């Protein structure tokens, strides 16, 4: 923590950045903070409650950063992949941001978490995460930590669901999606949902009905999962913020499985790695095509 605060202070003092984006202690656990003065660097914290993917704030579609000058952003390995995605998709220029990479041994599911980090309490998505520190970073701070072994429960759940009949899967998802109230928090929190106007808000034509009924909800979640294919970095924010507790990570995981198995793609924090959307190989598998 000392290392992080000293670095943040130095960056602000020497003027190489005007804002440091990190986490602080809030009334209900960790929360994002914008540090603008060197003395405020003491507010910064990093511990397993710092679950938020701050890359979402970098999106130019979000006005938060206007007038905040050059920015340094604290990133966990998964967050760094989101920043890489934003660079890949020309939303952020690499030289516009300073990345403060944090060594990470997994986080809790929740910023309010009071538990100590253990194989039981760790956020499910961190199980089996191979990355201990971001490679896409200008500075790397923090103490080295061990991760937790996989597979994650939701990976297992994906496999379980795949073993069911289509009808049983249909029933499962209808029960889950029935809780969707179309608040779009999943979209707002996603660092890679940065469209000027979301397809779900388009009216001419209306591909995604806005009503929170089974048909509109299904269209929305299909559309969201498709748009994140080969882009989702599995930061788990969508699922965390869903007020209905819908296991949205299962959908992105399912898509990630397809993309991984068929096109050999994994989320990467190297912006130069091309996305599987927009690339192809003549030998891509096509066993499903007559």
């Amino acid at each position, binding site marked *: 923590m000392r290392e992080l605060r000293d670095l943040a202070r130095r960056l602000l003092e020497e003027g190489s950045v005007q804002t440091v984006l990190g986490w602080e202690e809030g009334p209900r656990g960790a929360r994002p903070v914008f540090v603008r003065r060197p003395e405020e660097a003491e507010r910064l914290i990093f511990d397993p409650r710092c679950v938020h993917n701050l890359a979402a704030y970098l999106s130019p579609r979000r006005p938060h950063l206007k007038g905040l000058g050059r920015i340094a952003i604290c990133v966990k390995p998964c967050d760094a992949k989101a920043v890489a995605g934003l660079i890949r*998709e020309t*939303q952020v220029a690499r030289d516009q941001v300073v990345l403060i990479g944090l060594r990470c041994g997994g986080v809790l599911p929740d910023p309010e978490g009071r538990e100590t980090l253990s194989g039981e309490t760790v956020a499910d998505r961190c199980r089996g995460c191979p990355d201990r520190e971001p490679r896409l970073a200008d500075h790397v701070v923090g103490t080295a930590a061990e991760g937790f072994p996989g597979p994650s429960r939701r990976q297992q759940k994906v496999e379980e669901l795949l073993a069911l009949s289509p009808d049983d899967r249909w029933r499962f998802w209808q029960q889950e999606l029935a809780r969707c109230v179309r608040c779009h928090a999943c979209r707002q929190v996603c660092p890679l949902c940065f*469209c*000027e*106007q979301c*397809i779900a808000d388009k009216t001419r*034509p209306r591909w995604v009905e806005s009503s929170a009924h089974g048909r509109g909800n299904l269209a929305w979640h299909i559309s969201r999962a498709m*748009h994140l294919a080969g882009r989702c970095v599995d930061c788990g924010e969508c699922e965390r913020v869903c007020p209905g507790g819908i296991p949205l990570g299962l959908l992105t995981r399912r898509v990630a499985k397809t993309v991984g198995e068929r096109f050999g793609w994994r989320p990467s924090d190297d912006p130069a790695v091309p996305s599987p*959307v*927009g690339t192809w190989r003549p030998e891509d598998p096509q066993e499903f095509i007559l």
Partner: protein
Amino acid sequence: MARIGVFVCHCGENIGRTVDCARVAEALRDLPGVVHSVDYKYMCSDPGQQMVKQAIAEKGLTGVVVAACSPHMHEKTFRRAASGAGLNPFLCEMANIREHCSWIHEDREMATAKAIDIARTLVEKVKRNRPLKTIQIPVTRRALVIGGGIAGIQAALDIADGGREVVLVEKEPSIGGHMSQLSETFPTLDCSQCILTPRMVEVYQHPRIRLYAYSEVESVQGYIGNFRVTIRRKARSVDEDKCNGCGACTQACPNRKVPSEFECGLGKRPAIYVPFPQAVPNLPTIDRSRCLLFLNRAKGRPDTCKKCAEACSKGAIDFDQQDRLVTEEVGAIVVATGYQVYSIGKETGRDDLHGYGEYGYGTLPDVIDGLQFERLASASGPTAGRILRPSDGKEPKRVVFLQCIGSRDPAKGMEYCSKICCMYVAKHTMLYKHKVHDGQATVFYMDIRAAGKGYDEFTRRAIEEEGARYIRGRVSRIWRDGEVLKVQGFDTLSGRPILMDADLVVLATAVRPQPGIEALAQKLNVSYDRHGFINEAHPKLRPVETSTAGVFVAGACQAPRDIPDSVAMASATASKVLGLFASEMLEREPTVAVVNDALCAGCFHCERVCPYGAVEHREVRNRAGQVVRVVAYVNPGVCQGCGTCQATCPSKSVELQGFTDDQVYQQIQALGL
């Protein structure tokens, strides 16, 4: 408010027999927005078209649906008719109730219901159609010809004689291609060099042809009318402005043992060389992989031999010359990269082209290929035109020719007929007979394919007058027995195995496209078949166009071609190019993608998926002139209208005109319950 007219065609009995056309017209009449719906026997006839025009004028139609045949059949007809009545042609759509309905169903009820559905989807679509204007793009009226063989030479000369500038790129040090290697040509037996050399010189001297020999196309950007081509001018190590072509350098070179490519390995050349005496341009080139100086430099040793530079009175030798990149702007491209002969299982690096170990090619020196025989027969060749076999320089008295080596054999990876071999083998037997009067030529063939003017007469002459012995069958093995080659085969007509002695065996190897053709095709965005031959746009009706507008194809890079075919194709491409250059502007269908600046988030997925590189980055500035955003821009000249960008765009901020989301959506809606 939409005012749509529906015109249902009976197509005589073709539609009317299975579809109740009157009922279709009636059903459509009730749709909101439809103000006119009629059926008629022959909508494409003059009176039919008049009905459409009249209705447009009288009822003030804002859209037309013609329920008839496939749009591929008559879309143009009816769009022209609509246009004639003052309606924007892109407000007219075809509902295909013939090919997709009446012709494939028998049940009148079901077919009629389906026809109504089909027409309804198009009515809903046409309501959302917007008037479009054909796109005008300027044309750079210069052409690039890739390949300086006979096809490229002919195309370049025809275009240049037509008054347009031509850039001709040849990868070898000289133009001339394979034709310059041939001795005589079928079916007239005129000397290949004698008819080719004047054309080569003409190219060199033509004021409108810029020749880049020893050069290759590095990259191609742009689109029809507006290509920007980067050409790599490989370092010859000779300053072409200073060199006067005296040849003193080639005489001085101490390394004279390099197998000559031009002589197919049957002759030698120095490391600094002119490939053949009539080369155009007549400039020497240093083969850096063979030159002592460069070999030493590669090993970090000092320059020892500079004999060529010492011999040059003009100081033209430049050991430090580098490759240069030049850029040319052209409006059309002719691909004429020609062929290579099948390597008979050697040196291909491809598993599917192996085979023919049983013929001993490459290990038995007296087993040669057809191109090597051409060099033996050529007066300017390594034997000065005498047929002498490579192993001991003796005159062969028994020569066996084998046809279809690789060709027509799926197991060797080439199931196609190479087309030229039957003829050149017949020619070889004659040339041989003319030079070795007491010699016996024997040909093993599968079929004799001599279709062409004077061709069958020519092969008959080889057999009947020149005494060539033709055996229908294949050879299974060739081996050496002392000085003779044993040829074991089978005569399928007499049903007997044959074992014969030969002094020389000539393999008529298959024609394959040049190596590297795939990479070039990818640069040009043209499609090619699994062998690498460039695909023509239509096998019958568009034989010299390719899948990319403005890129044309001539000669043996498209399929095995003989000289007359190649020349005819080349002239055809020239006429296409000159036609394209006839006007300063070019018209294009407006089926192109358009970006909505306000909504584009600038993620550039569209750029990644665009097969044509049509998507550009465009800066959006505020009033103060500062860049506020960078958005996608689709260059309408480059866009071909596939719409992959739109399906990929997450926010649908790019729309393909004529197939917008709204139009497709309405079609899907129209099919709803």
